[in-house]
């Protein structure tokens, strides 16, 4: 039976350090299984947030060997076992204890985005008709499990700590899901530019790279929103064209 060495961050807001643990690895194990082994046998007081163990709840987000990942979806056989595996909490959010961070900032951000506002019903019975191809486009965004790995890897939040000015990729996806929805008539373009700070995104695609749901965050959500901002604020020709177009 193979064994693996882990360097796990232990500590709280007052400070902490990496501590070494070794545990046996069996076929099919994921990092969260190993963390649970260590918690059960060597570190009963280790804080780790988890829930579904199936990559659907987004609770067990952490940084494994420096990359934001879900612990429950990172198989041990994909990691180099000849050197210690580092597991640490997400860097873009305040630490609570060990591997658990306070992600409540994200919930506050969500409340600041204009809500879904449907057009008047299409039918007298108060229902709407939506073509499948129209809803297909936003369906991808609804796969998001709010693990906040994209927020963690985004350098605007992670390195520059611009949490007050930039909502991050997760909420640009959320805004895209609303803004591109075939029923929605709310206008969020000005907010995207001014309050939500979409201009901070410099399209490094790190958010797309770490998304466990493989949402094409940059190409399908952020860039289309940036283009809508360009339409409104940076394209005088389009503005001129719109002013002559029939409403």
């Amino acid at each position, binding site marked *: 039976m193979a064994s693996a060495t882990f360097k796990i961050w232990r500590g709280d*807001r007052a400070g902490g350090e990496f501590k070494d643990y070794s545990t046996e690895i069996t076929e099919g194990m994921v990092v969260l299984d190993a963390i649970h082994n260590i918690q059960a046998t060597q570190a009963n007081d280790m804080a780790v947030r988890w829930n579904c163990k199936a990559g659907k709840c987004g609770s067990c987000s952490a*940084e494994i*060997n*420096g*990359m*934001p990942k879900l612990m429950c979806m990172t198989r041990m056989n994909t990691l*180099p076992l000849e*050197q210690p595996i*580092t597991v*640490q909490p997400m*860097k*873009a*959010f*305040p630490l609570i204890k060990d591997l658990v961070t306070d992600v409540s*900032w994200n919930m*506050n*951000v969500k409340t600041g985005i204009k809500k879904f506002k449907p057009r008047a019903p299409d039918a007298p019975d108060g229902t709407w008709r939506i*073509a499948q*191809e*129209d809803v297909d486009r936003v369906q991808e965004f609804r796969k998001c499990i709010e693990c906040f790995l994209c927020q963690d*890897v985004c*350098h*605007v939040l*992670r*390195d*520059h*700590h611009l*949490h*007050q*000015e930039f*909502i991050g990729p997760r909420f640009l996806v959320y805004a895209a899901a609303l*803004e*591109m*929805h*075939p029923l*929605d008539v709310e206008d969020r373009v000005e907010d995207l*530019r001014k*309050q939500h*700070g*979409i*201009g*901070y*995104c*410099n*399209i*490094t*695609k*790190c958010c797309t*790279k770490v998304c466990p749901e493989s949402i094409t965050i940059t*190409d399908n959500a952020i*860039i*289309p929103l940036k*283009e*809508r*901002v*360009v*339409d409104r*604020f*940076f*394209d005088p020709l389009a503005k001129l064209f719109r002013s002559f177009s029939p409403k």
Partner: protein
Amino acid sequence: MSSFDVPLERGKFGQTARKDFWWVQPLFTFLGLAGFLVYSTWAAFQGDHYTFGPYLSPMYSPEIFNLTGEGAWLGRTPEWMPLWVTGAMLVLWAPGGFRITCYYYRGAYYKAFWADPPSCAVGEPRKKYLGERSFPLIVQNIHRYFLYLALVFIVLLAHDAWKAMWFENGFGIGVGTLVLLANAILLGGYTLGCHSLRHLVGGIYDRLSRRPVRKTAYDCVSCLNRSHMVWAWCSLIWVAFSDLYVRMCSMGIWTDWRIL
């Protein structure tokens, strides 16, 4: 928006717990883009060996002026124009601007040239960050205007590929014809997969089902857009190679083999 009651730790430049070769991709991007920049600048300053038979280097197309006036859009180079200004300098700003403001290249060169960030989850050298919301990077928003010019260039380069099939003794196909044809195709794949074009042809609307022509165009552009990076690199390398091919043939170093 709310903030935190505790300060977050700021990483140092290059600081990361990543154990993979995270520096390889930005390094290759840097070498690739820097190599192209050096070569294209050198080629633009040459001012000669950019035609061979029916072939015209894409870096010098369209030929606005030339010394004899033959085949140039506006005839002979005017006397007031400084001698160091070549035909390439009059045209390269347009496709160059299209690439510099391209969404793919922006992400790539912010990492490779500015280390902003050097790679995902790797510490940055600077503390201040303005992004694309203020000068100078706010200028990137003019990308769609360069797109309009780039679309014209596809037509011009396709015409060059057509002209490359007509030799002194009539229709023919040489290796150079295929080189210029591939150049037009690769540039077409890159330009027609542009994010701005995707938005303009259909992305702007939330209900495309009511606009079947736009829906088809949107699907086609989206299809090319999925491989935008590959098209970007292939077309970049091929433009440089096409210029090199014409240059080498013109200098008599390479022989242009006739296939037909």
